[in-house]
């Protein structure tokens, strides 16, 4: 559960609940982007096209594309643990 996987935001699907569709190595899933909002209630932090690190269905931080690539390479190198993390992600149906 500890791995954080990079994904790219495809669209905001539920602005009120801070849900966005992300693409994680071709797998599209819904995640929450609320932790990237500013704490003073002003405009949300994450936008379509942004790369984010995803942990247990939540975008934890914004990263750039180079960092996303590097992190994916690192995760792929982990073999079975990365496969397990992706398999768990695929089971996720966040509404």
């Amino acid at each position, binding site marked *: 559960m500890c791995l954080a996987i990079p994904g790219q935001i495809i669209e905001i699907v539920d602005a009120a609940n801070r849900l966005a569709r992300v693409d994680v190595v071709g797998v599209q899933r819904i995640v929450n982007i609320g932790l990237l909002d500013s704490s003073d209630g002003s405009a949300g932090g994450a936008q379509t096209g942004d790369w984010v690190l995803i942990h*247990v*269905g939540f975008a934890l931080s914004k990263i750039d594309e180079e960092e996303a690539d590097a992190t994916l390479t*690192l995760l792929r190198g982990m073999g079975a643990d990365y496969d397990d993390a992706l398999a768990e992600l695929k089971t996720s149906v966040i509404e």
Partner: protein
Amino acid sequence: MKFVDEFRDADFGRTLAAEILATVGPGHHYKLMEVCGGHTHSIYKYGIDDLLPENVELVHGPGCPVCVIPMGRVDDAIAVAHEPGVIFTCFGDMMRVPGSNGTLLEAKARGADVRMVYSPLDALRIAKQHPDREVVFFAIGFETTAPSTALTLRRARAEGVGNFSCFCNHVTIVPPLRALLDSPDLRLDGFIGPGHVSTVVGARPLEFIPADYGKPVVVSGFEPVDILQSVLMLLRQLADGRCEVENQYRRVVPYEGNLKALEVMAEVFELRPHFEWRGLGFISQSGLKLSEAYAELDAELRFAVPGVRVADPKACQCGEVLKGVIKPWECKVFGTACTPERPIGTCMVSSEGACAAYYNYGRFARERELV
């Protein structure tokens, strides 16, 4: 230096290894603790300790959230899972952690409705799909994961999902580090600070380590070159007589942390007076429970939770491994009675656990060295 070829930036890796060699003082033995299980995983996977001079030793710390859950809490989880009408949800790793009477996976085989979820929001969705059932989420994790549970609980309360509750086992990173630093067993020279936890809490909470204990800290990324660079930064601080918190992982970790995440956590959780850690015992103000405002969603108040403390199995030396006092392979049951398939101790369960990481990669690395 065979492994360096597999690094994204092999040249930089070689340069760092050479600079580390040039920085270590003769006659010194350096013990550096990597706090985070993700770092432990990278270190074994990429054979990073093989790249370091013999007098630089990496010690694995308590930063695997699955590994620190004591047996009594697993027993409590299983008791709740067996309550009539309950759907008990948890992360996949947690299903294989043994309590005193088996695992959640075994409880499922005995008829409890235990379901693996990827996200606390999946657990909330299951609750909304099954309004006639009680859905409990087994929350574990450091500050990396706690904000996700917090946002989920905030939404559950806002939407009035009355059949959802949380069995909260979230823990915080600073108290166990302080406990380790106070422990007479251990002489550490510096810390490779956690990556993802620091994304949330920032680097500032680690400032007590140089301020109160005179040890340097470098918050580190997870790539092999990140870890090598962090080791070098620590060794340079020691060589220069400096002692501060440095941030090698600035590209992801803001020094101040994630203020939104901290705000949500402060709303939903409060510190427990004390919480038991596997192998480390009770540590004061180290665990989180739901705040008064969220008490209606607290599974420990909704269900009869036995709350019986269970001593760690005698054969298991997870405590010494978690404190970095012994290496995984020095445990009496490592790789024999305790394996990832049939773990006795938690360090063998999660892939972030030092024992499982060493079991999975250590032997492989040694074989490769012989080739």
